[in-house]
């Protein structure tokens, strides 16, 4: 019925380097009004107009949901990614006018929880910035365990410690500090909900241990940060719209489809929400599935692809778009 979400016209109000990899961007509405209220865990999709290319990347909102004068996001520089984070780091300056989506929450708190146990890895800290602010405002019970490579790369660790003191536990890889996960998961009060955001390996580890220790799946929440990966260029035929397109190395399939003037629905652009699921009509080659939406069976069948994060290598690919 509709493509994506309503758009917001914003201006970059501040750009603040946080450490050698992460920079924080602040947005305000161009018309001076308040931004829409959001819930902790929500993201916005930022449109990056880079010359004749448009990239759309999702970023978690990390300000307090109680303050909607501005939105803040944090972008970790990825030197081998598709260039979205480099564009943000190099080209986005205060005063730049940009377009972002309305907030969407695919990682929301379960408000029934008696306690919220949060596990963050690296840049996966960002959704927890908003969630902890929301819970603290309501007197909610939470505890955050945050692993980072070094103290200097512990983005916002100091802010969190200052705000929440002992409710924040830090673990530094370079000091060989590790979460004692089994002990942590075995000693929680009944009614605790578990949230994890970080690298795929960490999410899988936490989910596996939680399942093994008898946690109900309804109490385990996770958000993958599956940014689209670059890859070899490939050609695609869009059967419904009668177009043949080329997907560049640094472009996602979804972006290439959009650049051709075809607008599939989307929300997360990270392979989790299912909105852009696309049927494959025929193919000769191999899929590089990077999504968390389709089942393994779907992946093997060669009948479906998630164009926001997945790619293709081979002679021909025909999609029902």
């Amino acid at each position: 019925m509709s493509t994506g979400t309503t758009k917001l016209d914003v201006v970059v109000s501040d750009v603040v380097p946080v450490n050698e990899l992460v920079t924080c961007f602040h947005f305000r509405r161009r018309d001076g009004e308040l931004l829409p209220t959001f819930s902790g865990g929500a993201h916005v999709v930022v449109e990056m107009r880079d010359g004749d290319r448009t990239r759309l990347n999702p970023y978690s909102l990390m300000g307090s949901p109680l303050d909607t004068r501005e939105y803040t996001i944090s972008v970790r520089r990825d030197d081998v990614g598709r260039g979205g984070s480099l564009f943000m780091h190099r080209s986005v300056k205060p005063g730049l006018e940009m377009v972002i989506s309305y907030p969407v929450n695919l990682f929301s708190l379960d408000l029934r929880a008696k306690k919220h146990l949060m596990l963050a890895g690296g840049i996966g800290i960002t959704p927890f910035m908003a969630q902890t602010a929301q819970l603290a405002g309501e007197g909610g019970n939470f505890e955050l365990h945050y692993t980072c490579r070094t103290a200097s790369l512990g983005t916002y660790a100091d802010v969190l410690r200052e705000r929440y003191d002992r409710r924040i536990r830090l673990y530094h890889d370079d000091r060989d500090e590790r979460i004692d996960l089994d002990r942590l998961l075995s000693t929680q009060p009944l009614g605790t909900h578990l949230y994890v955001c970080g690298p795929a390996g960490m999410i899988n580890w936490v989910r596996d241990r939680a399942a093994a220790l008898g946690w109900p799946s309804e109490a385990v929440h996770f958000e993958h940060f599956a940014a689209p990966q670059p890859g070899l260029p490939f050609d695609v035929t869009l059967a419904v719209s009668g177009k043949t397109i080329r997907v560049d190395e640094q472009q996602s399939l979804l972006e290439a489809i959009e650049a051709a003037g075809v607008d599939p629905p989307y929300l997360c652009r990270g392979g989790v929400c299912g909105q852009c699921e696309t049927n494959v009509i025929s193919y000769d080659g191999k899929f590089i599935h990077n999504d968390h939406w389709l089942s393994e069976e779907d992946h093997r069948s060669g009948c479906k692809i998630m164009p926001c994060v997945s790619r293709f290598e081979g002679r021909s690919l025909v999609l029902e778009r």
Partner: protein
Amino acid sequence: MGITFRKETFRDDFTFRNSPEHIRRFPFPFHEDAYMYAVNIEPHVVGPKGSVLENLIDVDEHYVAEMQDRALVLAEDPLRCQSLPHMTLAGWDLLELLMEQQALGYPEHFTLTRDGDRWRWINRPLGIDDTFTFGDTSTLPYGPMEYITRQSQGDFCILDQRDGNLWMDAGMVTTQADWSLDFDIGMNFFEWHAPVPLAHEKGIFTRALKFLTNIQQGKPARRLNWTMTINPRLDTSPENYHKWGPDRTTVTPENVGDKVHLRVELQSFWRLPRSNGIVFPIRCYLIKMDELVTQPKWARRLHRVIRDLPEELATYKGLTRYRPTLVEWLSKLDDGSATSPGFGPD
């Protein structure tokens, strides 16, 4: 120019009527001469002036009388309003939505002033002028959902979204077509729709749930539903079946026009920003047959729809007992000529 609110009742002497202007704005739910389920959901955007869609939250001439009827229902049965403990934040979301929309659409009747979290709400038709702290339940006479839904037409279900499903975890339900919040509270989308015939087999609920869980902030959606009610009774609840069920045996060829009412629900779906829940307002509109048939197109079309309705649907909607009498009465107003496309009167 403000709305002139009618003094009328939805029980006992049943003095409810629609003014001529309100007859023409009635949300007639049939766009063709037949009816079958469909996922008839569309974006909830502002519609033509003078229609019930002129504002996204509609306030009409029945507002004051409906709020009085709601207060009577709640006094007899407080369980018509329930909110599970985790739904308070969603209640504040709903309070904000309804205050904003009512003040926006009807500034002569409602005013909302905000100074940070200090809010002042003036509701002139009900004589309310309250100042409170947004987010602090101790500053309101009721919980936030109950407070604002005692001042808003229609029933309201607040659905929590989790585990890929929607859960009926709060609501204010006093104008319902034979379902019970007290029975459904805590149920998920499939559980509370279990009694609906035919639609499950068509996969309608699976598709509808997928759509609803993806409703986005700032992009509400809507659909129409309908049934029929004998006498203009808002509270046709299972709890009070003994009061209204027997009414269905009282329809005669002489009183069809006065007693039989088409009951249309304008259902809308909104993402709530703080709680990430969904609110589902179910706004009930009633029109008696005598009023409805003043629009000849509606009379012809309703005759054909009711006559040809599948038996399962007629049973589910509770029409079985008086359908022959109603069809016979309507048939006299159907000359067999074609009806124009679309919902509106000619």
